[in-house]
């Protein structure tokens, strides 16, 4: 009897392995094909662009990249281009584009922050959007503004009750992101100004949907979300008295924002370049980018480099 069970299991494993091996070999072939395709097309300039583009990385950027890719492939001029967008995290995106497994690496953070200097030097940065984040709290905590120091106190565990920062008598529950996440890196760099540790009893979730659900349901919860996730179920906090709005982000009056990057290794292939140009076009920047809660790069009145230095444009 149990022999049967094991045999069944083994057969299943074998089938899965076979399927996987098959899929991998296919993927590998596909990859090679598209590179040569894109290359040959590059030389015969003028003809319609064709080829395959694989974009991997940031799950925060994934919905926008996918939405734009669908529209892009529906355009007549680009009907021979196929764009595949995969999530997997900024780190995965950066290492895959650096190793040449992906054509585009999506990232929430500058490559310099994750990769070695010589590897990041090979990558070309395309800033396609700006994402801003707001600290969000459960609606009963009785706070609508926090200063930087108060946020630091909360996220380092110095303040453990909302009455410490002028709210209701309610224990604080931190709903954080994993310590390696790009979203967390942005929040720590521009809202807290310091790295924090995962505290005993704090919650770490990777998905924005889960963070929102937990903050909305757990009494005393605080977390942070991209502006596109804000709605009535949670309360978005002002930061140092500044409201998290698009206008305040463009002037850097509200500083908790970051670029969404699409990295290519060296100059992009013709197909990848067409896709990147399409994302940067005014129609997409003022259309999809805004609709999905991002801020168009062109509307930013300031620049920020990898070290965090802000300059007026």
């Amino acid at each position: 009897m149990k022999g049967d069970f094991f045999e069944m299991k083994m057969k299943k494993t074998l089938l899965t392995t076979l399927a996987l091996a098959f899929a991998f070999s296919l993927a590998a072939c596909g990859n090679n094909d598209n590179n040569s395709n894109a290359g040959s097309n590059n030389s015969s300039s003028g003809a319609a662009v064709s080829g395959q583009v694989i974009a991997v990385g940031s799950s925060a950027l994934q919905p926008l990249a996918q939405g734009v890719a669908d529209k892009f492939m529906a355009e007549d001029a680009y009907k021979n281009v196929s764009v595949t967008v995969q999530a997997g995290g900024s780190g995965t995106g950066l290492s895959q584009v650096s190793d040449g497994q992906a054509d585009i690496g999506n990232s929430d953070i500058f490559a310099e922050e994750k990769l070695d200097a010589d590897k990041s030097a090979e990558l070309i940065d395309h800033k396609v959007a700006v994402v801003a984040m707001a600290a969000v709290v459960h609606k009963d905590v009785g706070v609508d503004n926090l200063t930087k120091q108060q946020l630091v106190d909360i996220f380092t565990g110095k303040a453990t009750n909302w009455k410490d920062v002028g709210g209701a008598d309610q224990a604080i529950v931190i709903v954080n992101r994993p310590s390696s996440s790009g979203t967390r890196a942005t929040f720590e760099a521009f809202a807290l100004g310091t790295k924090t540790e995962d505290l005993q009893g704090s919650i770490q979730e990777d998905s924005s949907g889960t963070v929102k659900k937990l903050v909305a349901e757990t009494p005393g919860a605080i977390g942070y979300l991209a502006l596109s996730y804000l709605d009535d179920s949670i309360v978005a906090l002002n930061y140092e008295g500044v409201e998290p709005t698009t206008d305040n982000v463009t002037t850097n009056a509200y500083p908790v924002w970051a670029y969404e990057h699409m990295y290519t290794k060296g100059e992009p292939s013709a197909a990848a370049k067409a896709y990147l140009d399409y994302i940067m076009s005014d129609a997409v920047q003022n259309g999809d980018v805004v609709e999905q809660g991002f801020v168009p790069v062109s509307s930013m009145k300031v620049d920020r480099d990898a070290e965090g230095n802000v300059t007026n444009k």
Partner: protein
Amino acid sequence: MNLPVTNKQGGPPGKSGKWGKHVIEEARGRAFVYFCVLLMVVTIFSIVFFIASRGLTPFISQGVSVKDMLFGLKWKPEGNPPLFGALPFLFGSFVTSVLAALIAAPLGFCASIFMTEIMPKFGRTALQPAIELLAGIPSVVYGFVGLSVVVPFLRDVFPGQGIGILAGAIVLSVMILPTVTTIGTDALRSLPSGLKEGSYALGATRWQTIYRLILPTALPSLLTGVVLGIARAFGEALAVQMVIGNAPHIPRSLFESATTLTSIITLEMGNTTSGSLHNNALWSLALILLLMTFLFVFVVRMLERRVKR
């Protein structure tokens, strides 16, 4: 594993010098089966090799000691100096899986007894398919149900955040119930019927027969089901990650955020670049998981040996 090929020997070439049809069929079948087995063996070994080569790097060349990883309490991969104490994850994985098995085992045993001894017909036609259906539900659905039903319930009833080891164990117990029940039912069905009849002939009641005779006789098989259930619970990632909270600390209660080996891997792997120390340390955790799986298989084998004796 018994290969079906061995029962028929390939005959010598036909007298005319041609190969007979049955010989060619035989050879073709044998080649196919050998190829599949070879592919399987190669796959298994390359997986083990890959995980081991990545997972051992932190210990060999990146200055992390095995002791620090197995018994360290602090997980600060981005810290300075980086710390890789995985004890909180080991603790979380063990407690959650064992707790899940403790919840699932009595339920599974009872269901098995019900399906074989009490209402065999209803059990086979209705209950068994229903329980097997549980095995087909994707784990993300379990996780979401856990987050939407179990966590709020625990938050309202007990002090704490609702999220934590108990929430994870409850979700896992439902997930491993099919494993425990199916194996238990098979074991009970395969008991010789003379055993029961003898017991009834001596005047034992049904309860006495079940409690004193059937359960002890089938116990090693039932435990096999439980161990396989624990193995599955140990390896489950997504559903647990959604309800356990993922704080890299040993929790002070069952209702406080904790982490398992699998959830820390899925949570952080995507955010690290391959080759970095942090990434390799996650592979070390994967290696630990793999070794645990070997251990579970070993335990199952031991139990099976007891069944045969």
